[in-house]
């Protein structure tokens, strides 16, 4: 009898669901030891609907074709000196943040999805997580290649991996993923697939890729297009995991709600750097942070949470505070990096007169009142040759690890620093916000362990007590990668390349 050719549906079933097996002589609980401790109850894994509808063999074929095209464009970009087409060399600093802060996070995500891809009990969920794990690994590789061309012409790219594990502000994305990866598989996948990839991705991915498009960076734009189909799959996985967990058991609802509350806030705090990139670092701006938050979170996310209400899920309480902070976030973040710019691995600057007018227009309720006078004062000092850098080290939040620069926006007092603290086993801990404090108080056993860069310097674990020693420990080449853009070697090189006097 002639072998029957499989139809697509059958082939799909055999190459996904049929990869699982029954545990006839081993205890299933021992095979999946992480599945129960978080309190999540799964009654029937077969109810999982595969979000990708993709088999492994098709995945490899499709991605290989995509990658071949991507690398052909990278080659063309390098041969044609594509870096000369960016709007201005200040733009390149956004890429330095991407490579030092975001790309290593892709690697951490790869690691986390490899873990969930092993530990989730359902075969459909395991295969989805495995594919995403490979996606994230491809993303860090393709990002490194996209930026390697810039590394030939600009400072601050070469030690991104070393820096990610050490530099003070990079502990923010690093600790974010450490927090997620040291959770159980269900919290991890809710944190990253739902809160980050589904709810917040348009506030991370779109700003960098649109920023690249508006500023003539074809290498990064091409990466963005290539990754787009992956991101779409990741978002689908995020929505599927939430619906699946909520439909499996009503006891899952409060646990999932707690994770959504926590990870929306953790993700939002991480996006502070994106807000500042959009409003201050792009020479050609495409949208303000405030507009992006309104479009992608308040409108799109609002509809999502209305949809989730039928499961008993509520809009996280932190959304109210975030809405109030949107007039202040980018300005306060850039001011922090501007004043600690002597210790950052990218350049900072004061906005030009035209840029300040753009900020006034986009932030009519806050910029002229609170931030314009500050930046004008800084610009005047810089003009006189007295560029301001803040001495010493900032106090950090125990949870998000960001310097405590956030103010009492929730209380309409944007000029009062937000101080929160709690006691735990005889020690005092400090926070930037009620939400970071709540996260700590829910799991103090975990967050007492935070590697806070400022305290690590004081303990003598970062090369020495002087800034120069710490910079060496960071492999942050003092005088080349840091400080103001004006007068930097990047600026000089750019002017020489473009023939500007």
């Amino acid at each position, binding site marked *: 009898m002639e072998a029957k050719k499989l139809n697509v549906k059958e082939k799909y079933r055999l190459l996904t669901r049929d990869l699982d097996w029954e545990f006839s002589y081993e205890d299933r609980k021992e095979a999946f030891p*992480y599945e129960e401790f978080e309190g999540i109850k799964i009654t029937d894994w077969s109810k999982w609907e595969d979000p990708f509808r993709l088999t492994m063999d098709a995945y490899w074929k499709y991605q290989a074709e995509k990658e071949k095209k991507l690398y052909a464009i990278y080659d063309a970009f390098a041969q044609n000196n594509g870096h000369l087409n960016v709007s201005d060399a200040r733009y390149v600093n956004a890429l330095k943040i991407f490579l030092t802060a975001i790309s290593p996070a892709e690697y951490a995500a790869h690691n986390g999805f490899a873990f969930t891809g092993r530990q989730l009990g359902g075969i459909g969920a395991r295969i989805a997580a495995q594919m995403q794990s490979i996606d994230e690994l491809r993303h860090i590789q393709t990002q490194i290649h996209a930026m390697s061309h810039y590394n030939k012409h600009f400072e601050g790219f070469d030690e991104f991996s070393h820096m990610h594990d050490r530099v003070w502000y990079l502990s923010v994305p690093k600790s974010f993923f450490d927090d997620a990866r040291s959770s159980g598989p269900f919290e991890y996948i809710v944190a990253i697939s739902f809160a980050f990839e589904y709810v917040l991705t348009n506030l991370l991915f779109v700003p960098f890729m649109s920023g690249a498009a508006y500023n003539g960076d074809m290498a990064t734009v091409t990466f963005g297009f290539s990754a787009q189909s992956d991101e779409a799959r990741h978002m689908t996985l995020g929505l599927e995991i939430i619906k699946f967990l909520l439909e499996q058991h009503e006891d899952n609802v409060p646990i999932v709600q707690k994770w959504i509350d926590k990870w929306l806030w953790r993700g939002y705090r991480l996006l502070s750097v994106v807000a500042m990139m959009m409003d201050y670092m792009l020479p050609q701006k495409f949208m303000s942070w405030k507009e992006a938050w309104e479009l992608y979170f308040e409108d799109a996310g609002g509809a999502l949470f209305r949809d989730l209400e039928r499961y008993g899920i509520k809009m996280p309480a932190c959304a109210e505070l975030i809405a109030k902070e949107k007039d202040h976030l980018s300005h306060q973040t850039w001011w*922090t990096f501007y004043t600690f710019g002597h210790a950052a691995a990218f350049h900072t600057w004061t906005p030009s007169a035209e840029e300040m007018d753009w900020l006034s227009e986009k932030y009519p309720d806050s910029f002229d009142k609170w931030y314009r006078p*500050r930046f004008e*004062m800084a610009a005047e000092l810089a003009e006189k040759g007295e560029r301001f850098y803040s001495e010493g080290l900032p106090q950090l939040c125990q949870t998000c690890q960001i310097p405590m*620069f956030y103010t009492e926006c929730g209380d309409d007092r944007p000029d009062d620093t937000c101080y929160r603290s709690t006691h735990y086993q005889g020690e005092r801990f400090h926070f930037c916000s009620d939400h970071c404090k709540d996260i700590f108080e829910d*799991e103090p056993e975990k967050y*007492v362990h935070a590697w806070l860069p400022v*305290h690590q310097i004081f303990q003598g674990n970062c090369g020495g007590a002087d800034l120069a020693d710490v910079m060496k420990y960071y492999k942050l080449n003092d005088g080349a990668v840091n400080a103001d853009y004006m007068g930097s070697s990047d600026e000089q090189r750019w002017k020489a390349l473009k023939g500007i006097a």
Partner: protein
Amino acid sequence: MAVKALQEGYHGEFKDSAEKFGGAIVVYIGWDKHLWFCSPKAFPLDPNMPFGAVVENVLPAGFGAHPQFAEIDWDKVEWSLNQQPFTPDMEKSLAEQGFDHKCLLRMKTPGLDGLHGASI
């Protein structure tokens, strides 16, 4: 609430407990309404130093770059320690006046409320 962990009794190491700072205590200092300094700052200080030394050495290093710093009348500063009103004795040591590890010292300078009506 407590962390849910694989093993009962999981507890992370206290990364910043007092004994890890070589005898120093970490003191956070913030100057209200002076957002020229983006955030409060952290200082590892000897708990046996007199408060006067903080005013003389630590504050100028951390906050002296502000144009209003030189105008401060130190008799009129309103201090708080760990969010409680606090009247320092310049001669007594930090430890004697209740400064402990990871404490928060805030200063308000009435009449000097930052620049340009923007709390700079």
